């Protein structure tokens, strides 16, 4: 009973917060009364028009495709590298410099070089995103790997768990919070990067479209597209990340 009520309360709070944000926005827009901050209603209208015209779904779809591909590659590679570096001091010493350098190469530089070398093709765009995102994942996962519980690893060794079992049952659950952090901030980072990537070398996608709006200073358009993206991420959050979180945390008292 109480638990149920509790859950309802949390959901209520969740809905409330959205409402409050909308209210704030409406108030601000009303108060400023400038085309630099259109009201929610105006944005919703633009959103609707763009959706009906098929423009928004088209560009959103393309950007999401790029996001999914590059996110997957970056996470898989990043986890592998992060774990290896976290476990092996020699490799870590060797690649630490590279990591810092790649971490701090401006998005712009990586993108330009990728495009110029590999041509304005889809794979170059995705590679550019991966290069930007990968070092972040590596750094986070490496940090996580360094905190692994030695007692449990010893136990696994003693009982001959082997690599696969050790990874799945001992290492992975401990890395979970770090992976969650990397995922959440990673989606956001990729989204920031992908916009620049599309801006500089693709003829479709949200970044391309947002730039057009920016040239015309069409804030309503920008916000409508932003909202669409945020909604998708919110959906991912609700359908994938939250349940994952819940499942991974259910052992906690």
């Amino acid at each position: 009973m109480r638990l149920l009520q509790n859950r309802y309360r949390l959901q209520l709070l969740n809905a409330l917060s959205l409402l409050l944000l909308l209210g704030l926005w409406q108030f601000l827009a009303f108060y400023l009364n400038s085309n630099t901050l259109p009201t929610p209603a105006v944005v919703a209208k633009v959103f609707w028009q763009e959706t009906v015209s098929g423009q928004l779904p088209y560009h959103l779809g393309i950007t999401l495709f790029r996001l999914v591909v590059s996110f997957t590659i970056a996470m898989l590679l990043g986890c592998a590298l992060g774990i290896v570096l976290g476990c092996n001091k020699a490799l870590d010493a060797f690649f630490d410099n590279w990591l810092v350098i790649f971490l701090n190469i401006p998005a712009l530089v990586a993108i330009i070089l990728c495009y110029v070398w590999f041509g304005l093709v889809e794979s170059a765009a995705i590679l550019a995103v991966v290069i930007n995102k990968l070092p972040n994942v590596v750094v986070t996962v490496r940090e996580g790997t360094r905190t692994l519980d030695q007692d449990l690893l010893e136990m696994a060794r003693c009982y001959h768990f082997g690599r696969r079992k050790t990874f799945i049952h001992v290492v992975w659950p401990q890395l979970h919070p770090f992976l969650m952090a990397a995922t959440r901030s990673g989606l956001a980072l990729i989204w920031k990067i992908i916009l620049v990537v599309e801006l500089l070398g693709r003829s479709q996608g949200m970044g391309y479209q947002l730039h057009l709006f920016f040239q015309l200073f069409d804030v309503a358009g920008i916000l409508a597209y932003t909202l669409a993206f945020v909604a998708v991420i919110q959906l991912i959050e609700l359908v994938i990340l939250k349940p994952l979180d819940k499942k991974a945390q259910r052992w906690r008292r």
Partner: protein
Amino acid sequence: MTAIAIDIHSKTYSAQGTAPAHRAIANLKLTLTSNEFICLVGPSGCGKTTLLNIIAGLDPDFKGDIRLETGHKKPVIGYVFQNPRLLPWRTVRENITLALAGEHAPETVDALLDIMQLTQAQHVYPERLSLGMSRRVSIIRAFAVNPDILLMDEPFVSLDAPTARQVRNLLLELWQRRPHTVLFVTHDLREAIALADRLLFLSPSPMTVMGEISVPIARAERNDEAQVEAFRQKLLAHYPEIKTLL
């Protein structure tokens, strides 16, 4: 069928920050014949856990040599750690079955869970167990792998007297059914006498063997508290060199 020849010249934990280097074991020579049941008794912090870790192959950083003479290639080791070391994100049952290589008979696990009164708790995550329950899980895990060498680091603390008695009997039963070498750390002399073929008394750090006494009581009579007590009194009275340990 596992004999163990231990010859540790020295085991030193290296200095780190303000902490000085610490020599935990010095010149420890020890031979365990096949299927022997040995109890280790020694002061807190002398190096018992360190020794068990070395035997289990968890700590290769020592000078000396450990030889495990087994029939087949790699001896299976069951280790009841001093802390339960359960995976908190796996249920009780998963924690046990994970330690079993590939195929295993669920009945053995069921039977062990039953004896340890954990059948009810088998699908619970370890955070919901009391410490004594966690310890029992860790004991089941060590028994379930059918070890050639069984290392037990104070396994029965936190168990109430009746349960401890029961588990002690179970241990002996398993040991007699399928002989294996057991190293058992305890601070309870009565327990040690009731279980061991041989008692090893260990010195404070750096650890070495101070005394070695075979227990002359027949296995059948070990349950008799009076006999155990009598032998204990004898020990207390007649072995001045291990006096400080008792």
